[in-house]
């Protein structure tokens, strides 16, 4: 059996189907993945994301350290609680992980990294931290819930102490605050409004119960994946890994080139690639029936082949969509090899869906 979050018993109580995810026993759904997906688009759902790794960085040179460690620039955030999304790269510009970093003070930051990459991330961060003399503290004693959907904040607000509630409801997107024992961030991985709430593990079952009683739907990793795919949010290990740079994964916008003298790990490799991109990272819509899946071949006439990095059925659009790495060039149609048959796909702008609305022409 794998690692269990503090909410494991609650998942079983709610009828979860449990799967292994990066060594953790996690709910993949509680019955119907599609119903969970729609609950988040239309009302509110809650995901247990306690398996994710929270790392606090502290020390006089914390900011210098993160400006070296991360491809996005923490120097751009000066408001306490402000968050940025970034990649952590190796020397070749490959993505070791993607993460969110929260700014508290110049000497104190919080990182939230992926569960499946925990060990290599911690080893890398600790190794790079040595010369900066900062403390790298994993916060394994904390649990985290993501409450997502148009009604998520309203339904979840009662779990925040009254003294903090108003301020929490006023948080702008991609900002966070401490609210007593809770840490509340207006972030997520679904393309909907909502919060991610960090709390002591012992409090998690009570918060979970209150959310469910308020009408929030428990949602598993299955719905989390279809929601993030519709929102065109990258998944580490599928859309990018250590052999892929952010520029090859549609994440060029997360790389801070200025100031030009900021020496972040992987910069030199990215600078070389920036001059002449050979690939595009795009959204695909399948014109026919069928399901696009990761690793299927994308055929672009005259230009060569690409590959789907994430694909699936979009419950909101009721068609299949995908993210794919394809040859550079100006074209808006291609085909995908599904079990030997070439099916037509259209290249579309992303996200596919955001805030409950379909954003592409179907």
């Amino acid at each position, binding site marked *: 059996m794998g690692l269990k979050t503090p909410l494991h018993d609650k998942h079983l109580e709610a009828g979860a189907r449990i799967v292994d995810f990066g060594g953790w026993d996690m709910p*993949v759904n509680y019955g119907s*993945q599609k119903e969970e997906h729609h609950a988040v688009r239309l009302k509110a759902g809650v995901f247990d994301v306690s398996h994710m790794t929270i790392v606090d960085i502290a020390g006089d040179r914390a900011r210098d350290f993160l400006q070296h460690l991360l491809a996005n620039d923490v120097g751009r955030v000066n408001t306490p609680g402000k968050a940025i999304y970034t990649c952590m790269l190796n020397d070749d510009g490959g993505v070791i992980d993607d993460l969110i970093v929260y700014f508290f003070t110049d000497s104190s930051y919080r990182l939230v990294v992926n569960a499946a990459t925990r060990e290599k991330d911690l080893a890398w961060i600790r190794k790079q931290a040595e010369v900066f003399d900062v403390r790298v503290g994993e916060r394994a004693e904390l649990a985290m819930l993501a409450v997502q959907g148009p009604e998520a904040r309203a339904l979840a607000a009662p779990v925040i102490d009254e003294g903090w509630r108003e301020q929490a409801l006023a948080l702008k997107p991609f900002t966070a605050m401490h609210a007593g024992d809770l840490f509340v961030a207006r972030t997520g991985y679904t393309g909907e409004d909502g919060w991610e709430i960090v709390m002591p593990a012992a409090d998690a079952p009570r918060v979970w119960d209150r959310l469910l009683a308020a009408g929030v739907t428990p949602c598993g990793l*299955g719905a989390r994946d279809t929601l993030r795919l519709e929102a065109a949010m990258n998944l580490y290990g599928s859309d990018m890994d250590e052999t892929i740079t952010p520029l090859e994964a549609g994440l060029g916008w997360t790389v801070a080139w200025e100031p030009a003298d900021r020496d972040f790990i992987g910069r030199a490799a990215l600078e070389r690639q920036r001059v002449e991109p050979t690939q595009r990272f795009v959204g695909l819509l399948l014109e026919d*029936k*069928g*399901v696009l899946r990761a690793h299927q071949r994308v055929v672009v006439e005259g230009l060569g082949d690409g590959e789907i990095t994430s694909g699936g*059925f979009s419950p909101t659009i009721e068609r*299949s969509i995908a993210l794919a790495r394809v040859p550079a060039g100006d074209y808006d149609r291609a085909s995908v090899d599904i*079990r030997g048959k070439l099916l037509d796909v259209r290249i579309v702008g992303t996200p596919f869906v955001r805030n409950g609305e379909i954003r592409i022409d179907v």
Partner: protein
Amino acid sequence: MSELPGDLQYTKEHEWLRREDDGSVTIGITDHAQSALGDLVYVELPEVGQDVELDGEMAVVESVKAASDVYAPVAGTIVAVNEGLADDPEIINSDPYGEGWIVRMKTSADGEGLMSPEEYQALLDELDA
């Protein structure tokens, strides 16, 4: 866990087979299979008239989660496919042993190696353990 229909035969790949009065066989996937796959979103069906080999890939069922091959439990010729699945693949989720059938075949095979309900139940118990 619901009770397995007693008039069907089963495979270890979680297909079921029913012998019809006219000598044909109807084939689908079991309740265990649909439940493991989750909400179905697409079914790729064979052509009527197509010959299939024993254990050959005969159809593909795709859920929100994964694609899974459906293997022929006996060799034979496809005589009908469930057209209703094209627009509503979730029939397999709601009624795997009835309206959610996948294909009908003519076969001369005696179905050697197929499992009885009791044998299949034992396999499921083993998977649950």
